């Protein structure tokens, strides 16, 4: 049996704003999804640590980090119309980022086959110099930067319904990290168009696959099979990180894709097959605001990794998006089929 490393749960109960959907119970729901699998000795609950200032500064500006720490310690408040901080948020952000670093350390040391970082606040909208979209520190990027600095080639697959503009910006011109995103088209945060493919030193290492509202699980699976699989073959990652948001679920109140929890089992099994060698796959909780959907989808994801069929909702199909996948293939795959990376 494979072993699942669980980094968390870090629900950050005092990083909270009344009525805000990015709330501690999201993490409680996600860890309940892991608990539902009853993995017993196949589950390793990891001791983690706070990320250091230097580790965060690998992706964020020093001035932003100092300002964020001071802002939190002065009582917090709104950082943009969507994003808040409380007095504990600085430590919560360091805890969430540190959990990712600890998870890949544990994987590198052979302690497990897959890792799931069950923490908040989420990270993929956080930019080098500012908080955005509920995110303070870019957790997956902190881990990717640490791996890249150690000579690894990292692929980040972001299946959150929103485009991870922060992660894209951080690795835009860095050919050691390939950022791949499926997301709802013409939607927050307004980035992630097909023609955003990376900077001059990293052309083709940003891969955006915008999908129309209503897209179902079969469309997401096609995107992974027909667009992402050739990119994986071309890029040759040594590590695979997943920005696992669950707001593409049909019940999520913040967006309009139409996936079921069962679809996430299928997506996870496709991603598992991309992994270059055992123990090089870590999932990071991003969005997902409907608690039952988060719980069932996390169970489906982790269940698929572990080879136990836990998907209770059937997979979905028949939604729009086949043409969007073809367009993405035309941009990201076909022109490069004969190129060497």
């Amino acid at each position, binding site marked *: 049996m494979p072993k699942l490393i669980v980094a968390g749960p870090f629900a950050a109960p005092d990083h909270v704003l009344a009525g*805000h*959907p990015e709330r501690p119970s999201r993490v409680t729901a996600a860890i309940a999804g892991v608990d539902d699998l009853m993995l017993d000795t196949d589950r390793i609950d990891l001791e983690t640590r706070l990320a250091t200032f230097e580790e965060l500064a690998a992706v964020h500006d020093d001035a932003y980090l100092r300002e964020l720490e001071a*802002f939190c310690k002065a*009582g917090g*408040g*709104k*950082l*943009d*119309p*969507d994003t808040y901080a409380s007095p504990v948020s600085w430590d919560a952000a360091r805890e969430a980022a540190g959990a990712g670093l600890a998870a890949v350390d544990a994987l590198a040391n052979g302690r497990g086959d897959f890792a799931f970082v069950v923490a908040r606040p989420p990270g993929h*909208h956080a930019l080098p*110099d*500012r908080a*955005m*979209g*509920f995110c303070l520190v870019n957790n997956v990027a902190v881990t990717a930067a640490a791996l890249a600095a150690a000579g690894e080639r990292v692929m980040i697959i972001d299946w959150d319904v*929103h485009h991870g*503009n922060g992660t894209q910006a951080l690795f835009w011109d860095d050919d050691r990290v390939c950022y791949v995103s499926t997301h*709802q088209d*013409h*939607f*927050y*945060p*307004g*980035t992630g168009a097909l023609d955003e493919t990376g900077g001059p030193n990293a052309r083709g290492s940003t891969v955006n696959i915008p999908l129309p*509202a209503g897209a179902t699980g079969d469309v997401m699976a096609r995107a992974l099979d027909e667009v992402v699989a050739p990119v994986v073959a071309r890029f040759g990652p040594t590590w695979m990180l997943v920005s696992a948001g669950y707001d593409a679920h049909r019940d999520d*109140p*913040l*967006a*309009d894709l139409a996936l079921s929890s069962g679809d996430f089992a299928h997506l996870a099994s496709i991603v598992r097959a991309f992994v270059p060698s055992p123990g090089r796959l870590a999932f990071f909780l991003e969005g997902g605001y409907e608690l039952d959907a988060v719980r069932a989808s996390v169970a489906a994801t982790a269940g698929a990794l572990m080879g136990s069929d836990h998907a209770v909702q059937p997979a979905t199909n028949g939604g729009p998006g086949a043409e969007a996948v073809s367009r993405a293939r035309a941009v990201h795959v076909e022109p490069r089929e004969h190129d060497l990376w």
Partner: protein
Amino acid sequence: MVKTIVVGVDGSLDSSRAVEWAYELAEQVGARVVAVHAVGLLEHEIGDPGGDHLRPRLSEWTAPLDQLPPDRVERRLVAGDPVGAIGAAVSECGADLVVVGTRGIGNRHGERLGSTSAHLAEQCACALVIVPRAG
């Protein structure tokens, strides 16, 4: 000198002062005004994917601009955060001036200088006016 003004709008009292200020300047110098509202992550909860439910509200928030000739007024809903949305509007419209309220449009409930205003002050490619709250 000032041909195109971008004004950041969020429906707050601070932003309505910014709209008034932008209108008065535009009236005097014959400039065009582009009002920008950033459609945030939270706004989806109350509405539809295209943000069309926000259009009437944006018109309401920018009512003073109706006193200008229609071809000198544009209202935009842009997905994203205010700093990014205003920055994009500035480069797309070739704006000469950005006008925002004191707390910017990003910190309605905050207690310090709005993060939007502060970030725009650092990053804006053109002149920036931050309209004070009092007086």
